[in-house]
């Protein structure tokens, strides 16, 4: 289950606005039934990328589940468009990309298109719910650049590669430099932990 949720904790998806996009009618039905079971009322169902684009421009969406194969285009293209569409807040919404026949290159393609998660079929309800729970705790920042637009592709903040400065303003070097001020002596450290009366 997700980082902070157990299977006994309550999740209320009844007011969530969800878009489900899949190019195959039966595949879309299965997704819709799954989300109905999750308590989602009237998700926006789309067979084509064109329908999905219209939905993005018509209403605020909290979650999008997009199959890699849409009837008129690939799900990757829709996600790339979404991330650059400037349709806030929808362009920042979490997107789960669902893939069928999957090569490693397609996983990277989904990630680079701006998907929050790539899930490979068959997608059991328990797997989909796990991914949703993970997204509830997703604190990743959003990146816009000429080459990429979407959630930060780094899932862990472990700093820049050794020997490199890092590209983000809050990147810290893994190497610890020499002290620039005198070390604290033990009395000063103790004083930080001892309560003292202060006059206000």
């Amino acid at each position: 289950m997700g980082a902070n949720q157990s299977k006994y904790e309550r999740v209320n998806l009844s007011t969530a606005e969800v878009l489900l996009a899949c190019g195959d009618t039966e595949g879309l039905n299965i997704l819709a039934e799954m989300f109905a079971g999750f308590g989602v009322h009237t998700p926006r169902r789309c067979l084509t990328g064109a329908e999905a684009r219209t939905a993005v421009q018509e209403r605020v969406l909290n979650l999008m589940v997009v199959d890699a194969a849409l009837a008129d285009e690939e799900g990757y293209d829709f996600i790339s468009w979404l991330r650059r569409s400037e349709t806030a807040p929808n362009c920042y919404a979490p997107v789960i990309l669902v893939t069928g026949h999957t090569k490693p290159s397609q996983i990277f393609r989904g990630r680079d298109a701006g998907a929050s998660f790539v899930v490979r079929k068959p997608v059991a309800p328990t797997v989909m719910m796990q991914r949703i729970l993970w997204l509830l705790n997703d604190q990743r920042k959003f990146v816009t650049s000429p080459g990429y637009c979407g959630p930060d592709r780094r899932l862990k903040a472990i700093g820049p590669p050794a020997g490199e400065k890092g590209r983000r303003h809050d990147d810290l070097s893994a190497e610890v430099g020499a002290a620039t001020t005198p070390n604290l002596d033990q009395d000063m450290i103790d004083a930080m932990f001892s309560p003292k009366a202060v006059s206000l």
Partner: protein
Amino acid sequence: MSTVRIFAVENQLARVVEAPGGKTVDEHVRAATARIEGVRDASLASLVQKSEALAALAAEGRAAGSGDALGRIYDLSNAIFGIAGAFDLQPLAEATFSLCDLADGFRSGGSANWAAIDVHVDGIRLLAILGDRAGEAGAASILEGLRRVRQRVLPASG
């Protein structure tokens, strides 16, 4: 000059699900499983239709002698794979996955081996018609045959 912006965004999904009510995660999963089971018959029936459409596409592609049909064969096989997997029809899922490998390999490289595609399509049709009734031994022999075909025509791929 390239402009890179990195900024925090509100997690609206997290805000929405905090509303009172709802069900436990376990209850959601059980409800979703039951609802998917409710469309099982209709979905399995669609597999037969899709496998027939696959056969028609393969015949069309073979007659035309061009690779134009490979993309549609790939897409349809991929759609069958998704449905078969959802209902735990493992042999059908494996057969369609193998056909996806073939179609993808042929369209991104060498010429299409239509005999290999035909063998796959025949196996897929049979497995789709049998559905849940595909016996373990029969399905295993079909899959073994498809694996051998696939290895012969796509030796380099994993």
